[in-house]
């Protein structure tokens, strides 16, 4: 149908600028990442010679060989994958339930509960009391400590809720008349037409879990359970020469830049791959099709 429509000149000019600008933006945003990937395949000598290296002239896999020569990184990646997958499922379950419940406008006390949740975005008791609760609930030194204390992210829950609220009430009403209860409405009607929102919030959770790092250091004394971000962080901080406490170990040479870059690549690429897989849920009009069908 659209093809029959004659495309106006103005529209074509618009398209030209739009494509041009977007290409430019994509290039500018991606350059530093190319720098990181390029440096990870370079030799140390070339890095020291070239300030902002994009494509190495001498290709080297040394940094990757070094990283993968022990099982530390594999173990850390394994932990990160478990925490990310498990944590995302866990969080989505409770966030969806809470968000849907609070999206119902006829719920008595809804405003008070919502306010109570917003409040947690602004105030927190601090590291030590939180640690005590985590300790008292028996999560210390278990991977659950990276998940349960952050079960619901209030920010994500509020977004999800506002997506749910945009669903026409008529859909729910008609299901109700058919005798469906709240759970089946949520799982059979609301969720299927909220896939873009579910995909978005899942992505948010997945990325948060993937990046989890401070909790691992605080709650897990067993280094075997550290996720990959702890390793990445340690290498980046040491390699950037940012540990100012130089008085104790002046003789330790920092890890090489190539190793830093390779670790960034290894620790980042797995989570980067998530989004392209979710993109099919973002196709325009996908949602309405499913409703109508």
């Amino acid at each position, binding site marked *: 149908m659209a093809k029959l429509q004659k495309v106006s000149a103005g529209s074509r000019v618009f398209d030209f600028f739009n494509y041009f600008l977007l290409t430019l933006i994509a290039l500018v945003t991606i350059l530093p990442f190319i720098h990181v990937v390029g440096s990870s395949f370079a030799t140390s000598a070339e890095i020291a010679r070239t300030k902002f290296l994009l494509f190495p002239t001498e290709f080297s896999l040394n940094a990757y060989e070094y990283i993968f020569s022990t099982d530390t990184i594999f173990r850390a990646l394994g932990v990160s994958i478990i925490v990310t997958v498990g944590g995302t499922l866990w969080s989505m379950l409770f966030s969806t339930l809470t968000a849907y419940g609070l999206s119902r406008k006829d719920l008595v006390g809804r405003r008070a509960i919502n306010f109570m949740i917003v409040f947690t975005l602004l105030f927190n008791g601090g590291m030590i009391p939180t640690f005590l609760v985590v300790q008292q609930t028996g999560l210390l030194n278990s991977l659950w400590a990276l998940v349960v*204390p952050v*079960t619901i992210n209030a920010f994500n829950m509020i977004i999800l809720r506002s997506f749910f609220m945009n669903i026409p009430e008529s859909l729910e009403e008609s299901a109700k008349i058919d005798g469906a209860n709240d759970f089946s409405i949520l799982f059979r009607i609301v969720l299927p037409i909220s896939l*873009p929102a579910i995909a978005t919030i899942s*992505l948010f959770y997945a990325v948060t879990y993937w990046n989890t790092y401070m909790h691992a250091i605080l709650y897990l004394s067993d280094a075997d359970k550290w996720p990959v971000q702890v390793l990445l962080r340690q290498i980046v901080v040491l390699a950037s020469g940012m540990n100012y406490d130089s008085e104790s170990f002046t003789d330790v040479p920092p890890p090489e830049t190539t190793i830093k870059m390779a670790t960034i690549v290894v620790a980042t690429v797995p989570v980067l791959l998530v989004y392209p897989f979710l993109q099919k849920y973002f196709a325009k009009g996908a949602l309405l099709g499913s409703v109508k069908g």
Partner: protein
Amino acid sequence: METSTMSAREEAKQLKKMKRSETWRRIKKNKMIYLMILPGLLYFLIYKYLPMYGLVISFQDYKPYKGIAGSEWVGLEHFERLFTSSEFWMIFKNTLMLFGLQVFIFFPIPIILSLMLNEVRHSFFKRSVQTLVYIPHFMSWVVIVSISYVMLTLDGGIVNAVLETLGLQPINFLLNDEWFRPMYIIQVIWREAGWGTIIFLAAITAVDPSLYEAARMDGANRFRQMWHITLPAIRSVIIVLLILKIGDVLELGFEHVYLLLNSSNRNVAEIFDTYVYVAGLQQGQFSYSTAVGFFKGIVGLIMVIFANWLAKRFNEEGIY
């Protein structure tokens, strides 16, 4: 007459009763919904509200080994110290400036970007751009700031090298307080703009494509279509995000600012988080840093309440 007042009183009573029973009826009707939100509420109570007793240490001279029970109460001393400190207004101003940049410059960019992406018809191009622009979000600030250093430094940085070949004076980007704010916001945009589009793109999927069709029939150009169809569809998400952003008024990314901070730009770059970092973490002044956190929370709360009230006045849903 008398009977009628009686009946009126009775009626009011009745009405009240009815209202109460109506409330009860609604609660009962929704009992499954309450069941649904119960685990979530328990989570917030246990892991968010239980630790909040820790806030009381901002009224104490807290010593870890004495615990909260054993530490000495000092009333508002820490708040007094904060408000009377010679840097307080400078920090407050710096924080507000960065907040302004975040709201007025950064915030609209992901929206514009997602509108632009939405106009792209080649699915492959669209997906590629989307994926590329979201990558920087995964680079830590440490990496981003060190890349900026490499590009902007006077000692062989690319940008200054280019300026010099163009016959221009090199610019002292790093050790100059005028460049801190532009640098800050450009880095924020660079890292977060692409990531920020995801939410809006998800919201845009709710638009019925036939609406565009109809608009085209009416001769609406692309900008009008954006304005009248796409934007209204994502309005509620924009407002929710804006309110949440306003609540973060004093949260501007500690790590980022701390990495950019140096002796020459402290007068514009010092914010609350960096200010308490030295006191709190390096010197174990738990009470003082908690008090500053408390203060930040209160300011955030006031802003959120105000923004939410404003949203409601415009018949928006708000966040609570």
